[in-house]
């Protein structure tokens, strides 16, 4: 699985949505992405990439695109 595929499945599996819904997806756009969903998403990303995210990065993760930027810049995940 590529990093992008791993990244995408963290979202689709956590929120029960399709890949086609990911572009532009933001916090609270869908009911499943509330604070409970947010922590599950963080846990899924940490597991998928074997990382520990910093507090600031967890609260910065406000959209599908923002998360990708954080992982690329702070955790050396190449997409």
């Amino acid at each position, binding site marked *: 699985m590529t990093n992008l595929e791993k990244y995408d499945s963290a979202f689709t599996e956590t929120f*029960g949505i399709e890949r086609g819904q990911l572009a532009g997806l933001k*916090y609270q756009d869908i*009911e*499943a992405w*509330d*604070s*409970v*969903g*947010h*922590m*599950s998403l*963080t*846990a899924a990303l940490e597991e998928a990439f074997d990382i520990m995210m*910093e*507090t*600031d990065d*967890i*609260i*910065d993760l*406000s959209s599908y695109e923002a998360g990708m930027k954080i992982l690329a810049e702070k955790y050396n995940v190449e997409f």
Partner: protein
Amino acid sequence: MWNFDAFGNNVAIIDDSGTRLTYSQLKHETEAIAEAAGKRCLVFVLCSDTIGSVMGYAAFMNAGIVPLMLSRHIEPGLLSPLMDAYRPKYMWLPSDMARGDEVFSARGYSLVRTSFTEECPLHPDLALLLTTSGSTGSPKFVRQSYTNILDNAKSIAEYLRLDETERPISTLPMNYTYGLSIINSHFLVGATLLLTEKAMTQKEFWQFFREAGATSFGGVPYTYEMLDRMRFQRMSLPSLRTMTQAGGKITPELHRKFAEYARDSGKNFIVMYGQCEASPRMGYLPADKAIEKAGSMGIAIPGGKFRLIGEDGREIQAPHVTGELEYTGKNVAMGYAECGDDLSKGDEWGGVLRTGDMAQFDEDGYFYVVGRKKRFLKVYGNRVNLDELDRLIKGKFPVECASAGEDDRVHIFITAGANPDDVRNFAATTTKLNPKAFTVITLDEIPKSESGKTLFTELAKYWRKTE
């Protein structure tokens, strides 16, 4: 209820858009809302963490108008049967949701006259109606009196030593009894409410927290699990003085962890115990006992009294013996309402509440909740009535159903005939809780005793196995 005049120039509310409102402005604007609503009547309030929402609530409470509090996110399909059951004269709701006969609006909220012509008579002591069940649309509400609310707010202000320098930040919905008690107790002392719709998992929340200098917040057990996973302890929050916890039992490990964090950073961590039926606060663990008594929900609040009732109906006198927790105090609500006709009823509980929680006390008189008598779970601080959930699922899908589990982890057992994902999504939608809280397991049959009772002990092995 509150004397806003006493705090004239104090700031009453600040929201995350920077709007500030003094107590004299609050008095002025709430009076205008009350005047538009006219004489004592019932109003459905669709709540959010915004100035308009808080102001409407304060206006109604101060003017003897009875609010029934719901989330602004309630499903329309659940709202209309409630309207039919209680026949409110008005709705106070976000202006962008307002339809029909809008008679007044302020701060993004509107007062809308409903089409009901015959109102239900209201008992003179009745102040407020709150739901016990989150958002399942159950018509059961707790009837709280003015004395209940005022007495409890005073008691809270006393044991938390609240004063006008406090700045609690909104972390709990105001249609939720715990969230509302924070508003009630802080208005009493002239403090400043900080309102935001952002969640603790969002950067904007913490920006507002720091800019506005929040001094306290409340959280349910899940809130503290979440903060722990976010490594909250590493954040620099110099303005923070007090963290309170209620809405279910926190694990002793997490209790100790936050108590130690509080001790090391010069803050207070206060575990509390309450129920909507007690308007809501009944117990608290003083901050200086947080480490020594971690796992305990503490002692009765000022003016209240706990005792334990054994199976034989007698009061338990010895420590470490389990009995049902009973609370006595002026904040015990008047009773329940299931429909509009119940609103004329007086006090049915006489200041005594059987909590349904099984508890023990230790040698020093500190109480520990050890179990629950009734069939419900607390999920993210919300009570989920399992029998009601089963009934809703059976009404929607052609299956047998029994739900069980632990707090924050509901296990729904069904027989074949429905897609487990559909059942899970249905449970999440009707309870307005994140689907993560629900696990659906399909069984050949629901295990039952010879007399037809569900064998929950048989089911327990399933959720213990998935841990």
